[in-house]
Every structure is written in structure tokens, then in C-alpha cells.
């Protein structure tokens, strides 16, 4: 297999995953408007896409995907400035820690553990940015309830991600035609 065809396929997947991340994030945003949930708590479907990309595309493409998602979602929301920094803070911290967990835990941490780590640091990153932007360090008391939420949503999205990857890997998996 030539190198070009491989990167073309990766590029196509990147574009698809970016579109999926934006649409999932937008849809989830609409749903949240009808659910009386405390701030910061959501399933995080857009971030599951990042989870897939870590396993399907590798670290480099995942960083690009995260930046694409943050910028595109920022343009779609009415409040570009604030939304951009919250999701950027959550995105960078969450992706870094997921890549780290996957690397360190090579055979002993599955996608479920990586997903929980991602959800956890997405929440921590966002509340850190919120506390910084609004200059209210006292807000950090909220980080502990958010940790419990992250375990719940992280396990759900991790188990879902496991199934998705199992299916997505079959056709055109790396090393296959």
C-alpha cells in the first residue's frame, strides 16, 4: 500500500470525525437546553469522537481534530470568546491526559479508562478556565461533584466507543486494503 493512499484515507477520516464532533456537540447543546442539569455536566458525545481518533488515527491527527472541533464549535456558538476558551482549556487538558493514559497504560488500561481520564480532565480544564476567566477561585469547590459526573459519563462513552471502534476498524483498517 502506498503512503499517499494511507494519508488520504486518514485525511478523509479526520474530516468525517471533525464533522461528527461538531454535529454531536451541537445536538448535545440543543438537548442540554431542555435538561435541568448543573453546568458542566453532559455526556460529552463530541469528545467521544476524540476518543475514536486517538485509537484510529493516532496522536498527531487527534490534536488537529481537537483544534478543528474547538474552532468550528466556537464559530457556531453565539458567544465565541467565552465558549472558545472553555472548550480549548477542556480540549487541550483532556486530550493530553488521554494520550498519556493510553501510552502509560498500554496493555493495562482499556478505552474505558482512557475515556474516564478524558471526561475527568475535560471537566477539570473547563472549570479551571472558568475560575480563571471570572477570577473566582472559589468556584473550584465544584470540581468534586464534576469528578463523579465524569466517572459516570466517561464509562458510558467509553463502552460506546469500544463498540464503535470495533465496527469502524473492520473495513479499511490499517494494514488492510
Amino acid at each position: 500500500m502506498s503512503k499517499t493512499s494511507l494519508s488520504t484515507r486518514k485525511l478523509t477520516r479526520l474530516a468525517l470525525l471533525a464533522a461528527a464532533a461538531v454535529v454531536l456537540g451541537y445536538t448535545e447543546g440543543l438537548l442540554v437546553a431542555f435538561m435541568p442539569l448543573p453546568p458542566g455536566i453532559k455526556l460529552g458525545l463530541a469528545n467521544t469522537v476524540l476518543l475514536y481518533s486517538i485509537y484510529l488515527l493516532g496522536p498527531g491527527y487527534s490534536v488537529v481534530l481537537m483544534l478543528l472541533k474547538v474552532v468550528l464549535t466556537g464559530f457556531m456558538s453565539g458567544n465565541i470568546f467565552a465558549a472558545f476558551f472553555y472548550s480549548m482549556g477542556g480540549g487541550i487538558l483532556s486530550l493530553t491526559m488521554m494520550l498519556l493514559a493510553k501510552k502509560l497504560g498500554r496493555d493495562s488500561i482499556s478505552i474505558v479508562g482512557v475515556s474516564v481520564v478524558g471526561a475527568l480532565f475535560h471537566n477539570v480544564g473547563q472549570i479551571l478556565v472558568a475560575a480563571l476567566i471570572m477570577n473566582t477561585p472559589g468556584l473550584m469547590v465544584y470540581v468534586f461533584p464534576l469528578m463523579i459526573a465524569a466517572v459516570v459519563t466517561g464509562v458510558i462513552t467509553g463502552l460506546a466507543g469500544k463498540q464503535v471502534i470495533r465496527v469502524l476498524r473492520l473495513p479499511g483498517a490499517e494494514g488492510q486494503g
Partner: protein
Amino acid sequence: MNEDKAPLMKRKDVWIILAVLLVAVVGMTVVWLSGRGANVSRARIFLGSGSEPYQVVNLNEDQVIEIDQGSGVVNHIEVKDGAIRMLDSTCPDKRCVYQGEMSAENYEQRAMRHWIVCLPNQVTIELALEEER
């Protein structure tokens, strides 16, 4: 590929989950123990990144405060019977409104404790927890 037969999670996944839950429970307990039964008679409203309150509200005076930050960014805060809440907001998600009311009676049980936050409009309400002497 035998992933169908693979266990739901691996051992270290469970460790991660237990560790996060442990830290969360310890953290929540510490937060809960500190500042229990405080004297609450005032609340502070902050706008944007200002470290000085935009307004300090006496919880014993029923009122509705309008905060108009221009370009269609408006929040209404209601003080009634010693409790304070976000009455309405022009933000897209209304999570600040869903956070409900907070008062001396209920702040220890609230997830966000003595805070009501509207992230999009950058309006923060903090109950002033004062030591009882």
C-alpha cells in the same frame, strides 16, 4: 479479533475509576466540613473577571435586580424570603436558571454550593459565608 470476548474493562480501568471517586468523595467531605453553618445575610454579584463585586445584595430585602451588560446580554436576579436565584437570563443554555435558589438553609446541599454561575453571560453570584462568632 477476539474483542467480543474481552472483559468490559481492564484492571487499571477500575483503579482509575476508584481513585477518581475517592478523591471526589474526600474533596466533597472537606468542602462540606469547611464553612458549615455559616452566617449568611448577603450575596455578592460579580460581572466578567472583576474581582470586586458589582453589587452586594442584602438577602433580607426582597427585590429583582436587572443586570444589563448591553448588546442584548441581560440577567434578572431575584431575592425573596432570604433566598437568591437567577430569575432569567439571555444566555443560550439557561443552566444558571436551572441552578435554582440558594440560601442559608440549602447551600450545603447544593452541587455548586454557595455559587450560581452563568458562564455565557459571565455573571456570578456568591453567598457571603461569614463565620459565626
